[in-house]
């Protein structure tokens, strides 16, 4: 594998400025290509295993939509039985819909059996390849094709599912959140994760240029603002204990994150927009308290 310059690409079909290829490349580089990749149906699958081309330079299985956890568990069990654990890490790449909605059952089973699997959810906060439908990880107020803005509703109602909390509650050895805006932090977390035997969950925030309505040049900036406003906290749990968080030196108001995305633009005019913005600010404030994101005093 040493002569392969890139483990992912060139030639993937993601939009210019798409967030998740950064996460995939960093992960595979950190693992030096020693990965058996399981990939759920979703944007990543569409842009990397397309007509006439597959851009993965590692073993790759597309596992349909809801089954990545189970398929990865099966690969892990086989490698164990065959005494071939040293050949590579079992790594899942799944989107937010595959992870938090349709695939949460098989994910939970994989966690529960504590398979030696690194599960990475790239979170672009909606079903982007089928036409920007909301998922359980779409934040409140976002406009999607299935939560359209109308006179009554200002986009998605309800909260973004707490996948970190759900993963931690399974008692697996390593759970962390990361962002494509902080590549060094992501790299370190992948490295740290594979030091643990058992199930590892890494949740990576990755903006979608078309679904979120942002300029392709601003992907990293938007992802950074999600962290800097406290809406998307970067945290790390080992054996159920919160061990590290990324501290926020000067926290920004959520409006700074919202105003540069088309999916939130209506919040600044809709009669219920102000209420939703307050709600989002409250979520950020709660995150700060819950994870201790700001130094006291």
């Amino acid at each position, binding site marked *: 594998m040493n002569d392969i310059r890139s483990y992912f690409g060139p030639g993937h079909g*993601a939009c210019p400025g798409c967030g998740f290829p950064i996460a995939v490349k960093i992960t595979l580089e950190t693992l030096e290509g020693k990965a058996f990749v399981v990939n759920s149906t979703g944007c990543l699958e*569409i842009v990397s295993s*397309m007509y006439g081309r597959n851009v993965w330079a590692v073993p790759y299985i*597309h596992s349909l939509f*809801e089954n990545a956890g189970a398929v990865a568990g099966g690969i892990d069990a086989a490698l164990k039985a065959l005494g071939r654990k040293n050949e590579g890490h079992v790594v899942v790449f799944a989107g937010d819909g595959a992870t938090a909605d349709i695939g949460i059952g098989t994910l939970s089973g994989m966690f529960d059996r504590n398979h030696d699997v690194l599960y990475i959810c790239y979170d672009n906060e909606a079903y982007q390849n089928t036409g920007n*439908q909301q998922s359980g990880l779409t934040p409140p107020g976002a406009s999607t*094709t299935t*939560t359209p803005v109308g006179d009554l509703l200002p986009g998605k109602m309800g909260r973004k599912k707490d996948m970190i909390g759900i993963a931690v509650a399974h008692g697996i050895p390593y759970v962390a959140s990361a962002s494509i805006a902080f590549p060094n932090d992501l790299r370190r977390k992948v490295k740290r994760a594979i030091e643990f035997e058992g199930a590892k969950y890494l949740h990576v925030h990755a903006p979608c240029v078309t679904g979120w309505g942002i300029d392709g040049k601003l992907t990293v900036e938007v992802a950074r603002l999600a962290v800097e406003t406290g809406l998307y906290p970067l945290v790390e749990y080992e054996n159920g204990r919160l061990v590290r968080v990324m501290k926020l030196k000067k926290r920004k108001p959520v409006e700074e994150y919202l105003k540069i995305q088309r999916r939130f633009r209506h919040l600044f005019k809709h009669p219920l927009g102000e209420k939703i913005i307050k709600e989002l600010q409250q979520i950020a404030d709660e995150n700060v308290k819950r994870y201790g994101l700001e130094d006291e005093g």
Partner: protein
Amino acid sequence: MDYNICFAGAAGDGIKEAGVITAKIFSKLGYHSFIYQEYQSLIRGGHNASIVRVSDKKVRTHRYYYDLLICLEDYIYKIHERRVKGEVIYDAKFQCKGLAVPMTEFVREEHEPLIFRNAVAIGVLAFLFGIDFEIVKKTFFDEYRDKAEADIILARDGFEYAKDNFEKIDEVEKIGEEREVYSGNEAVAIGMLKAGLKNYYAYPMTPTSPILHFLVKRDDVIALQAESEISAIMMAIGSAYAGNKAATASSGGGFALMTESISLAGMAEIPIMVVLGQRSAPSTGMATYTAQEDLYFALNPAHGEFPLIVASPFSIEDAFLLSATLLNLSWKYQTPSILLSEKHLLESYETVEFSDIRNEEIEIVRESKGIFKRYEITDSGVSPYAVPPAIVKANSNEHDEFGITTDKAEIAEKMYAKRMRKEEMIEREVRNLEPYFIYGRGEETIVTWGSNFGAVAEVADELGFKVIVIRFLRPLIIPNIKDNSICVECNYKGLLARIIEKEKGILLKKILRWDGRPFTPDELKERIKN
């Protein structure tokens, strides 16, 4: 007048929208139209095409050869070159044969993204066909309202450029009142609403997602996105149990997840309707291409015997009619129904006139003294329908008349037979609901089902065939068909043909394709002649 116009470009070029706007421009002048949308499962790049057929006569299909190609990317020209039998309009940013239009330049001048090249192209097209620009302007406005401005400015740029540089192809005049253009998915949604749909649940999957997109914007129905297809159908079952007409939709993969629930609906006698939009399979297949490969799956989707109604529409107008009919039938007989269609029908557009159909409401009991006799044994097999707060026990286990679980042989024998008796009533009713449709006259017959009818009917008109299109597939009522007739389907084995052969003891000539593309009249004619 009959033109076949193709817009071709990459994903993100607004090809689909250009096709719809063009059809709507012609429909404003009273013309009939049909649009075939072909696209790849891609985020960007690749190849999208929208083939718009417009005519002064009713059209139900696109044609293979183009009278006009509007090409927005150089590498895409090669794919379509052999189908061009007329003019080509292309973006002057690349070299091609035909009429160069500086689309990219116009869009840049207006500081708009490249997706707006489609508006320039529509302006050029309008001039070439001698269409008044006001019609173009009005069509954009009706479609995009306050967001139409940039499209109108760029369409005018195209229109003026064409006026200065090109000759007209035709002078298209208004021939009648404006016609309405709907997609198959929209027709299904409207049909279900007509029959009283109150709750709709779905999980994203091509080709039926647009039904959900359409329904979430309405305030006369609760439409929600579930977290999986299992959830979607079970939410529909929950709503129907609670007394509301409910439905869901998916394609083969998602439908597979629904099958256990369909069996539950059969056992607990809960009326639900499922739209199964077929696409190329097995598994993910070619996710955005059409097929008719799931016929046997739809006829036998789940474990056990229970009454099930399956029907397949042969046109967009029929999709409206059958979705309303099936939702009504499900409630009348308290059993699941499946509208079996395909990508080619659901995602295509056509000028339509919807017929009249009403919401057939059944009597619903809403209170009870003690446990309601929900599964009362009746001659017809249909028991009174009751919903909470009446005390209704719905049960996946075999049960007695009160819905209490049983393993007694004599009760099981009677209850099972009661459910199955409904099949006889359903069959009697379906016989009067046009279980098959006969079109045209001829010595020889072509049998088909689903959206193939568009191409088949056109070939039959030309070559003098009679067409039998099967609408209801379960119960299946087949008219007399002569030995050696032709059967046209989009699958490998001739799934419907094999059923007909067994039932009627005849042999059929099978004309089949399974490459994900729908038949065009041109291709079908060749196949029939050879």
